[in-house]
Structure formats: C-alpha cells, structure tokens
C-alpha cells in the first residue's frame, strides 16, 4: 500500500511545488539546455509517477497472485478496476492531446506557409528567407521537416543593419536546426492534457523562454552578443504593447539583459541539473518496475 501513496505524492510534488520553485528561480536561465532537460524530466516523471500510482494501487487492491480471477461482487476488485480505468483515462487524454496538438499545429503551419509562399518574396541571397511586405517589424521561422521558412518583414529589414540581420537569421536557423518547435509541442501537449485547474503555465512558459535563450546562445557564438542585442532592441522597441503583458518581465527584456550581463556559464549548475533530471526519471521507473519484476521473478520460481 505504501508504493502507490509515495508515487501519488511524488506526482503531486512534481506537478505543483517543483514547477513553481523552478519558475521563480533565475538559475535555469544560466544553463538553458540543462534546464530544458530538467523540465522534460520533471514532466515525464510526474506522468510516470501518476501512472505508477494508479497501476500499483490497482495491483495492491487486486489481491494476491494465485487468486487472479476478477470478482465483481468484491469491493476490493471493483476499486482496483476503477483505479485502473481512471489511470487509463489519463493515458488516453494525454495521447489525445498530443495528437490534437500535433495535427493542429501542422495544419496551421501549413496554411501559414502557403500564405507566405504567395505573399512573400524569396530573398535570393539567403536560401529559405522570405520577405514580407509589411511595416510591422517581424521575424520568425516556420519549422518543418522539409521546406522550413524564415520570414522577415520589410519593417524589420528597415530597422536592421547587415550584422543585426545576420544575428536574427542565425537565431532563427538555430531554432530550425534544433527543432525547438518539437520541444515546445511536447510541453504544449502535456499542458493541454490536464484541466485548467490542475495545470500551471510555468513549465510551458519557461520552456518557451529557454528555447529562445538557446537560439540566442547559438547566434551570439556565431556573430557576437552586440548585433543580437541591437536587433532585439530594434525590433522590440517598436511593437505595440499589449495590455496585461507588463506584469512579468518579458522574455525579450530577460534576453537582452542576459546578453549584457553574461553570468559565467556554470558547469556545476548544469551537471547538477542533468543529474537531477536523470534521478527523477530513474526513481519512479524503478519504484514502478520493481514490484512487477519481483512478481515476474516469483512467478518464474
């Protein structure tokens, strides 16, 4: 009876307090790659722990091996079946959400790409670059397995010099190369799988910021920090502010401040985060697997 309780507790801690703590901390921004790995591990571990809790609870209420027959008149067996059904429902919801996000995202992106292809002119100098005749300064990428696009508006080109444009393109191509969109898609799917009152926005929000930092790091390694910071300020300073956005410091401010004050990249911090990520995955997996393995070994003996 102790295993399901421990796993349920672990799932709850990983779903609530841990993300809240990570969301308030500043250290993830110093080691974005390790922080993303840790976030992924926290999310997967939370899901695994929840499944493990459900499975082991139904297992522990279902009685001893040797009396495997399901008895509908026994409350114990009914409880086990109910717990199992609930667990399965969570699993189905997750799969459903992942499928919907994957299909919806691709459909919207395909439509957007079709529009870009007929409305934007390719720039002969850089392959894959499309220039949109719009005054609003805008730069983004449309990821795809084949035929990804980098879109820049005329308004953005007007505000950027050559070096700054190179920095922007390096940033976008870093997103495309590393398929950051898939990372975000996974977080989005998980986010949408849970009802509004259970989920928190922290994981998805921080994942979005962290992939921007990763792309920034790639761009600054190629062209230096200054052109990238200038490009960020040139493009951000002129967009209209959105009501309600000013409450938290936006990712753009964080990114430029980070370029201005590069904190030493802490190897220790990164190693700690990676270690925590591995441990988080190993512990619930073993707790779930151990009783099953034991049962199998018993059965064989």
């Amino acid at each position, binding site marked *: 009876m102790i295993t399901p309780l421990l796993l349920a507790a672990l799932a709850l801690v990983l779903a609530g307090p841990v993300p809240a703590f990570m969301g308030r901390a500043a250290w993830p921004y110093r080691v974005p790659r390790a922080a993303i790995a840790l976030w992924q591990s926290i999310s997967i571990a939370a899901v695994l722990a929840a499944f493990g809790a459900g499975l082991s609870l139904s297992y522990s209420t279902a009685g001893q091996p040797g009396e495997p027959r399901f008895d509908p008149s026994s409350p114990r067996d009914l409880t086990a079946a109910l717990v199992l059904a609930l667990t399965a429902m969570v699993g189905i919801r997750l799969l459903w959400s992942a499928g919907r996000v994957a299909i919806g*995202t691709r459909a919207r992106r395909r439509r957007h790409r079709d529009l870009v292809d007929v409305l934007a002119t390719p720039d002969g100098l850089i392959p894959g670059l499309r220039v949109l*005749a719009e005054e609003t300064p805008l730069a983004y990428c449309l990821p795809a397995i084949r035929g990804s696009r980098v879109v820049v508006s005329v308004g953005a080109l007007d505000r950027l010099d050559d070096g700054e444009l190179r920095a922007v393109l390096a940033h976008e191509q870093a997103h*495309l190369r590393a398929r950051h*969109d898939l990372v975000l898609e996974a977080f989005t799917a998980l986010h949408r799988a849970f009802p509004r009152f259970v989920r928190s926005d922290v994981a998805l929000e921080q994942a979005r910021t962290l992939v921007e930092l990763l792309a920034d790091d790639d761009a600054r390694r190629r062209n230096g920090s200054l052109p990238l910071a200038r490009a960020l300020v040139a493009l951000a300073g002129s*967009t209209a502010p959105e009501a309600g956005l000013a409450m938290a410091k936006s990712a753009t401010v964080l990114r430029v*401040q980070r370029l201005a004050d590069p904190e030493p990249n802490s190897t220790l911090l990164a190693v700690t985060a990676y270690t925590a990520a591995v441990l988080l995955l190993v512990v619930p997996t073993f707790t779930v697997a151990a009783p099953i393995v034991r049962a199998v070994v018993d059965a064989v003996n």
Partner: protein
Amino acid sequence: MPTDEKAPRPLGDLERLVMEQLWAADGALTVREVHERLSGTRELAYTTVMTVLDRLAKKQLTERERAGKAWQYKAAAPREEMAADLMRDALDRAGDRREALVRFVGQVSDEEAALLRDALARLEARDG
C-alpha cells in the same frame, strides 16, 4: 541547413506569379488566360500553369468553377485579406496558438523598452 535549398523553388515562385495575375484580374481567369498573361515575361508550358493552378486550388488559395468546358480560377480572397490573415496568425500572442511559429521577439511595454535600452547601453559600453 533545414531552410531547404532542394524544395521545388521554381514551382513556389510560379505560385506567387500566378496569384498575382489572379489578384490583378477583374474576374475569374481560365488556365489559358493565366498562361497568356504570364508568357509575356517568361517561357512557360501550358500544363505547368495548369499544375500550379491545381496546386493553389488544393491549398484553398484559389477557387474554381466550370465555365463551359474549361475551369475558371479566381483568388480565394483579395491580397489584402490574405495578408491580414497572415499577419494576424504571425502576431497572434493569445498563448494557446503561439506554438506554431517561433518568434524572434515579443511585444514589450514602454517601461520594458527603457530596460532594454539600458541593457543595450551597458553592452555597447563594454563591447562597442
């Protein structure tokens, strides 16, 4: 480089040219009419134009209807309307739909713009 050099660029180019003809036209155009309008500027096979128009119809960028024996094509929406659609999609910050595009920069408030300039000034003093 994932920004593909291998994709059928010429066909994509043609799609844009064909759409421009349709936007410029008063009404719907037959394949032959589109072909005629384009062949002033470049050497094109009739079947190529047909293929491109068919692709555009599949992408729901054009609409077609029968006119006697031939198909007539027109743009599904005026250029401005499609551009507005695209911009709305690109600028959509309503959280839930943001994942489709990865944006270089977000929107900032006036106070944040001041913070940005401060940070940039510090960086320029150091590196510039």
